[in-house]
């Protein structure tokens, strides 16, 4: 079906929301509580629009498209309403962008920028909650929370760990872990789903704090090195330091839909570990010494040849790996079968 947004004709499908049709067509409407993976909540009311023939300003995140619908997202009336919503959100917490981890990646900041809000018009109490850094990997700063509820939905409906929830009402509303425990002592398994969904800087990766600005990092999509589910990852990489700063899940991946576990998201220190091997090593008199590739390869080739010629190909064996690529495993078995001449190839599939 066709709808019109800001005078532009847009092809939409039945059941789709106005917000979705707009975003898909490159028309920005501020939205804070809606996320594709947590669905419309119609709570924050930042996404209000005007619809011809409809009184009031409906929220676009839960407004289904209708044939011939005429929608405006950028009239003064709409923008004024959006401005009040975003202004209130900015006023009700400690949204100091300068050293906020989400700076440049913050949906509240994007909304304020779009609406031209330079500083909040209201002055509320800004420091109400102590920071919760009790968890190993997640840092919670409730003064930045806008109560959008994405983390609550993510924890309960996506990863179904059922730890996060809202407590209290109105201005006193806050997110809590279990029965208002510190995150580190709650039943949280630190999968980081809440971090990935948080639109602001309220729930962030603890170990990435103060390490790099979002725009300095290259994003590279790849696959998790741990279990066999094959969750797709985005590595956020600092090229100058040659280092992974943080990891998120690929939102539209068929395997994990953005979800990860504590290993996939946080156990990446091994890549940059100082214990990594950096040069070939040869053992002499029971001790390893550094060697160059030429020497190490020559030694291996000689020994393999000698053993093959003296004891036969089946006196050699190789272990391929469940942790390296298909291409590398293919080449490994080819090497054992073609160059060494044995089918003594296996890996730890059974272990």
């Amino acid at each position, binding site marked *: 079906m066709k709808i019109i947004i800001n005078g532009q004709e847009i092809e939409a499908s039945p059941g789709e929301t106005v917000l979705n049709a707009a975003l898909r067509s490159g028309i920005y409407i501020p939205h804070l509580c809606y996320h594709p993976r947590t669905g419309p909540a119609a709570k924050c009311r930042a996404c209000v629009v005007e619809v011809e023939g409809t009184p009031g300003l409906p929220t676009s995140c839960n407004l289904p498209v209708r044939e011939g619908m005429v929608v405006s997202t950028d009239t003064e009336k709409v923008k004024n309403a959006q401005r009040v919503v975003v202004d209130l959100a900015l006023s009700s917490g400690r949204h100091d962008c300068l050293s906020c981890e989400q700076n440049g990646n913050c949906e509240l900041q994007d909304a304020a920028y779009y609406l031209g809000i330079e500083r909040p018009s209201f002055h509320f109490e800004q420091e109400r909650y102590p920071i919760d850094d009790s968890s*190993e990997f997640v840092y919670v700063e409730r003064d930045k929370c806008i109560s959008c509820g994405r983390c609550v939905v993510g924890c309960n*409906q996506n990863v179904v760990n059922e730890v996060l929830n809202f407590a209290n009402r109105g201005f006193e509303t806050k997110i809590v872990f279990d029965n208002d425990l510190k995150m580190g002592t709650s039943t949280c*398994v630190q999968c980081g789903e809440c971090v990935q969904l948080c639109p602001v800087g309220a729930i962030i990766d603890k170990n990435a704090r103060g390490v790099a600005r979002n725009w300095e990092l290259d994003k*590279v*999509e*790849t*696959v998790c090195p741990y*279990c*066999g589910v*094959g969750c797709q990852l985005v*590595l956020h990489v600092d090229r100058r330091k*040659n280092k*992974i700063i943080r990891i998120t899940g690929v939102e539209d991946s*068929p395997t*994990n839909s953005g*979800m990860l*576990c*504590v*290993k*996939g998201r*946080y*156990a990446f220190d*091994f*890549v940059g570990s100082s*214990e*990594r*091997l*950096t040069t070939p090593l040869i*053992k002499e008199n029971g001790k390893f010494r550094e*060697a160059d590739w030429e020497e*190490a390869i020559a*030694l*291996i*080739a000689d020994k*393999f040849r000698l053993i093959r010629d003296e*004891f036969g190909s*089946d006196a*050699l064996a190789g*272990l*391929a*790996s*469940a*942790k*390296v*690529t*298909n*291409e590398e*495993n*293919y080449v490994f078995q080819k*090497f054992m*079968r*073609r*160059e060494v*001449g044995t089918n003594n190839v*296996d*890996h*730890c*599939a*059974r*272990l």
Partner: protein
Amino acid sequence: MAGLAASFGSGAMTNDIAGIKKADVIMIIGSDTGAAHPVIAARIKQAVREGLTKLIVIDPKRITMADYAEIYVAQRPGSDVAIFNCLMQVILQNGWEDKEFIENRLEKFDELKNEVMKEKYSPANVEKISGIPAAKLVEIAEMFAKAETAAIFYAMGITQHTTGRDNVMSTANLQMICGNLGKAGGGVNPLRGQSNVQGACDMGGLPNVFAGYQSVTDEKARQKFEQAWNCELSGKVGLTVVDMLDKAYEGSLKALYVMGENPYLSDPDQHHVIAALEKIDFLVVQDMFMTETAEFADVVLPAVAYAEKDGHFTNTERRVQRIRKALNPPGEAKEDWEIIQMIANKMGSDWSYRDARDICREVNELTPQYGGITWERVGRTGLQWPCPTDTHPGTAYLHKDRFSRGLGMLRGIEFIEPDELPDEEYPLILTTGRVLQQFHTGTMTRKTSGINRLAGPMVMISVDDAESLGIANSETIKIATRRGEITAPAFVTRKISTGVIYIPFHYKESPANRLTNPALDPVAKIPEYKVCAARITKIS
């Protein structure tokens, strides 16, 4: 995998992750899914939460998935075949089987029937064998068989037994008679435990097959590879991991080339592994780290990490996905294929791969299932094998209208007890596995300090056993089997049955595999990690 290959003709997870939400009933047996495959666990929990699926969990530990189960029961480790035979007996007695599927798609139904209808598999008898109440067995059979579509998910809790292949074929038997194969949401779904264990198997990292499960004993397959590789190839099936170490110990295996594996911690009976590694004349280890195994090596070669290279991993649902280079490797570390090529050429060969892409092309040519899974086509979402041609969309679930081997083969399987049972000297059953936070031998996860603070060594014991021995929670105790002993802090919990203890195998300071029994499944050659006899004692 040997079990599924015998039943269906193809040894891989039959269905896909997306299918989870199409199952009316899911049975999890022998998989601590929440710990070992957390994101698949999330999908299953979603399906339960959304009212799409009912869950049955059978596990000796009360795993997190049990909280979402309609029925949870704990079995005595090693009693799985009896349980499956009992479920099938109840189903056949009540006529809940899929008669049309049995008639049209399966063979040897009578053989199966003769076995499972035996009196020893009656619910009353299997209660005695497994510890699962007879009424629960009947309830499980009814819920499972009456579902329009039901799926089984399992992992190493099914396979790591001397009867591992029997267990796997039992899951296949049950799914076949219920007609749960060849359709979305059903299937026999072994969850693969490592990022590319499926790919390593697919690529021929096995002693009996070339890439694409083409048998080394098959004359035609051998000729195909001889021609493609321009060489002569051996038609003799090679050694498995455990056999390799035995031969090394005996002295007939002289050299071992290890790429990215750590048998020191991952193989059973550590004392034996150490003796074997010490005996090998020439050991080459290619890894990111100086692993416990690498310490024994004559030459250690520095390899790159997943984030430092391009290529593909194949996940548990047969989905081939791209891995992409994001970082430069440290020092002089090289990609594994490059190192292998250097050795090959130094031995006088003629290899000339320029990059992983060149290798991928050769894989496409020689591996029928991967024929259409080209570098160019994999894209952001990947492709599921079998995908034989450039235009094939990939395969979400296997055995749609026919099994890979034609008819699905049922088999009557007799229940056999585990190799080592508790006795007076070693009165407990020791079973091993993983925890959520750590991975395999810990080479990767243990480099992140926060992970170590979350999950250290432990031995899980029941409240009853702890009380009778006067053991307090987190008290360090001694665990001994016929093969060795270790110490670990006790985790006293109601989540494990009396008489059973559980130790995760990730830790070199408390290596569970110093204790495990190296007895193998005679065909699949998988060691019995899930059952051995053990004793715990206080350290006074």
